[in-house]
């Protein structure tokens, strides 16, 4: 029991416990912890109670687990490392892992505009869509009546009150009383449900909405329904749902639509389908589609190539230009260096989307000052030509991002040991040799990881693309993608957030691919940079 001995020996010495555990003096540390934990618990309780009210059981369970975990960790003695890790782990789980897992899940479904909900919801929606008002029938005053558990409608037509239920056809009754709006207020043999009661009882409302009272023994005459509880009209459904067989039958044509769980639609034998579908798991279909769909694969390939070109070229050009300026303005002989450096940083200080919009205006073929001032009013279609638009994107992004590299390189240059430089000069190295063999390698040690993150950032640099060209000029075809679209803006288009029909499944699948690509490239690159440090 060496351990115990060690503790026993140490005990007389300074106590190892933290302020937060020890009650010494005023006990400030402990009280602070207690207060903090009380706050955290209060917050958790609020969340738990809201979750209870909203009947969000997953959130409820999760919150309970997390808060119990937090209490155990922060009040137990043995969990010291977890005290530091726990908050971070929670945030990691919620903001990273959950999003990742959920995107992954969506990538394997056909979730999108036509497949938004569950099959049950699709059935309900289809029934709604196919229940039409019978032509030429009027809207009539209506009251809800009740006899025990049986609900019915009392309607006034031509001053005659008729009552009916789901089972019993509307039949005139005598002795009814109506109000000034002709709504029945008293019906012999029936209890009239007051509006107040109706609107304070949600279940009753639901029953009322679902209630259909046939107007005659002939089904094709339709049935009375109400939408607001005070007026009724005659409706006729043109489609019938068979819950056993899971089929819809069109009453007019007799076409039978089967629930196809492969595609998430009601499909007839002849291939026609009902508009509303539901979300189903489709396996790798989305991934396969991204590479095989004729409308999509070609444009996506071009987009991918351009994404790489854009990210690589942006990093190279802006790094190069930033480094060049950093070298020049690091020279002691230049006067007013501080002032000039400040001016250089300006593009970096403007919000990127604003600069991009400004450039968009300046690059306008007819009215932009670029053509007017620098090209003698020539008619250069900067944003309308596929190659010029690509160039414009690179140019504007260079303008936006070289100040960053200027800053970073200036800092790194100033941190270089001056002795090394001096030594090399004494050894007879020229400026170029110095730069190539000493400055650059040493600079790369600190800037290469930044270059990699800059690559990853530009790989997903949505702002510049969206603000400058919106991905245009468009490729021919319906892909909706264009010559300057990068993967992330293509995903944005496909997801339908910008309008048009949404396909979240495909968009998620592409996001996963982008994530994997960026991940792999970053991993390889970071591995490479470790070699740089060995210099």
């Amino acid at each position, binding site marked *: 029991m060496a351990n115990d001995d060690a503790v026993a020996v140490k005990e007389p010495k300074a106590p190892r416990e933290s302020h937060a555990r020890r009650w010494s003096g005023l006990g400030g540390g402990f009280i602070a912890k207690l207060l903090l934990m009380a706050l955290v618990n209060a917050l958790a309780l609020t969340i738990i109670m809201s979750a209870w009210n909203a009947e969000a059981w997953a959130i409820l369970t999760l919150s309970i687990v997390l808060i119990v975990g937090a209490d155990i960790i922060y009040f137990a003695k043995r969990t010291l490392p977890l005290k530091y890790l726990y908050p971070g782990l929670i945030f990691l789980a919620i903001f990273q892992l959950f999003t990742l897992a959920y995107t992954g899940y969506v990538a394997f479904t056909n979730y999108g*505009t036509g497949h938004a909900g569950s099959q049950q919801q699709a059935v309900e929606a289809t029934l709604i869509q196919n229940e039409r008002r019978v032509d030429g029938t*009027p809207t009539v*005053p209506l009251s809800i009546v009740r006899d025990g558990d049986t609900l019915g409608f009392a309607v006034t037509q031509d*001053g*005659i009150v008729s009552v009916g239920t789901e089972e019993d056809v509307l039949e005139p009754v005598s002795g*009814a009383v109506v109000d000034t709006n002709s709504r029945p207020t008293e019906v012999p043999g029936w209890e009239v449900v007051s509006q107040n009661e109706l609107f304070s009882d949600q279940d009753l409302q639901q029953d009322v909405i679902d209630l259909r009272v046939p107007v005659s023994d002939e089904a094709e005459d339709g049935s009375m329904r109400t939408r607001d509880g005070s007026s009724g009209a005659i409706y006729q459904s043109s489609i019938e749902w068979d819950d056993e067989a899971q089929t819809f039958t069109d009453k007019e044509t007799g076409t039978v639509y089967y629930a196809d769980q492969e595609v998430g639609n009601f499909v007839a034998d002849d291939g026609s389908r009902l508009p509303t579908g539901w979300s189903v798991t489709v396996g790798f279909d989305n991934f396969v589609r991204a590479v095989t769909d004729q409308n999509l694969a070609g444009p996506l390939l071009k987009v991918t190539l351009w994404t790489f070109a854009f990210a690589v070229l942006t990093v190279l050009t802006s790094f190069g230009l930033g480094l060049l300026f950093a070298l020049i303005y690091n020279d002691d002989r230049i006067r007013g260096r501080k002032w000039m450096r400040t001016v250089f940083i300006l593009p970096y200080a403007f919000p990127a989307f604003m600069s991009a919009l400004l450039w968009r205006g300046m690059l306008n073929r007819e009215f932009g000052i670029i053509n007017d001032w620098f090209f003698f009013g020539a008619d250069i279609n900067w944003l309308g030509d596929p190659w010029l638009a690509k160039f414009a994107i690179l140019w504007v992004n260079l303008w936006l991002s070289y100040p960053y590299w200027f800053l970073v390189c200036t800092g790194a240059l100033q941190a270089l040991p001056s002795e090394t430089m001096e030594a090399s000069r004494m050894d007879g190295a020229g400026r170029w040799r110095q730069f190539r063999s000493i400055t650059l390698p040493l600079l790369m040690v600190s800037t290469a990881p930044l270059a990699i993150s800059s690559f990853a950032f530009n790989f997903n640099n949505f702002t510049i693309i969206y603000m400058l060209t919106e991905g245009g000029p468009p490729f021919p075809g319906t892909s909706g993608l264009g010559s300057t679209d990068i993967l992330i803006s293509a995903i944005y288009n496909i997801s339908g957030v910008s309008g048009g029909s949404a396909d979240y499944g495909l968009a998620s699948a592409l996001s996963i691919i982008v994530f994997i690509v960026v991940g792999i490239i970053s991993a390889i690159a970071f591995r490479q940079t470790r070699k740089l440090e060995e210099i």
Partner: protein
Amino acid sequence: MRKQIGMGAAFVATAALLAACSSDPEPAETAETTSAEPTVSTSEAPEAIDASGQTLTIWTDAEREGAIQTVADTFEAETGATVEIVQKNFEDLRNDFIAQVPTGEGPDITVGAHDWAGALVEAGVVNTVDLGETADDFEQVAIDAFTYDGQLYGLPYATEAIALIQNADLVGDTAPTTWDEMIAMSEEAGFEDRPFILFTNGTSGDGYSAYPLQTSFGAPVFVQDESGSYTTEVGMGGEAGQAFAQFLYDNGSAGTGYFSDTIDYDTSNQLFADGESPFILQGPWMPFFDDDSMNLVVSPMVSAGGETAAPFVGVQGFYVSSQSENTLLANQFLTNYMATEDAQRALYEADPRLPALTALAEEFSADPITAGFVASAAQGVPMPSIPQMGDVWDFWNAAEIQLITGTADDPAGTWDSMVSELEAAIG
């Protein structure tokens, strides 16, 4: 209840129905006594409904929030229900509605544009609305716009359409009636270079803005059936479409140069406000209507091809969620509170768009500018809300911009291949 829907028509039309229900005369007789009785023993005026404890959630954008709040306040005061108004960006409403309604987190009602109807129906998130006889109080184009596959899916409240806006200081206040007349007026006033501004959304192209010109050649995007619903049959092919393509080409960079792909929103604003051109085809959202120093005349777009220049009419309105747990209350709110003239007036005052309620449209037409836009909308067609419209834009805009820039030197061929590609994509 405050207002019952259309009793008048009920009395005229129901007799046959009841006769069908009851073949023997006896109930009819008792009914007659009933009908006599109520008139005597009519109870006191009906009180407002009491929906205390119920919450109605409405999504809106910032512009309309105030107006909806006014109506909601009345509704809350009269019914005791709580109305929760959630403000979102207009661009987010559609997709959020599609995403949230199936999860049960969606609203009961949302503000929206009519051309979402197709997507909302496909997603199964929207309920039908029955305005009953109140529907007759609205402009026909507004009701048609919210009608999808024969069913009404929303309560309209505002319409919008582009019209020909003319700077009367430059060319006088007589509105031209044909394309040639308009060009002549401009040239006379010294605007040979830019007699007319056509918005092309920069290099993206904008079929929406050029649509009145296109329809004046008789080339609608989709063919409408006799009920006014759009079919998926592409209508802009053939000779009419080719003629329009030729027209774009002849007036683009390769021809007169009237159209160019450099006109985006800011540029068109600036050009017109600076008096660089006397005519522009734009909507009521342009900022220069707030500027009193310009004398503007608004009139329906002139015809270039001989037929009526029909712009797309966009209609704003309210949708009810198919998963709402308060459908009754939501319908009460829409039909008895929102569809009233007072409420529609409040909406107009909060966000002046052309009212969809005919009475209000006529009332506000006292203002000549509003009258011009109303007249333009009246000769317009609803923007198709069928999902296939989503496929149209890419092909259509791209083809138009190619014609305008003159990069396509065979206008008819370019147009035909666009139409056939589109037909292939729609399937």
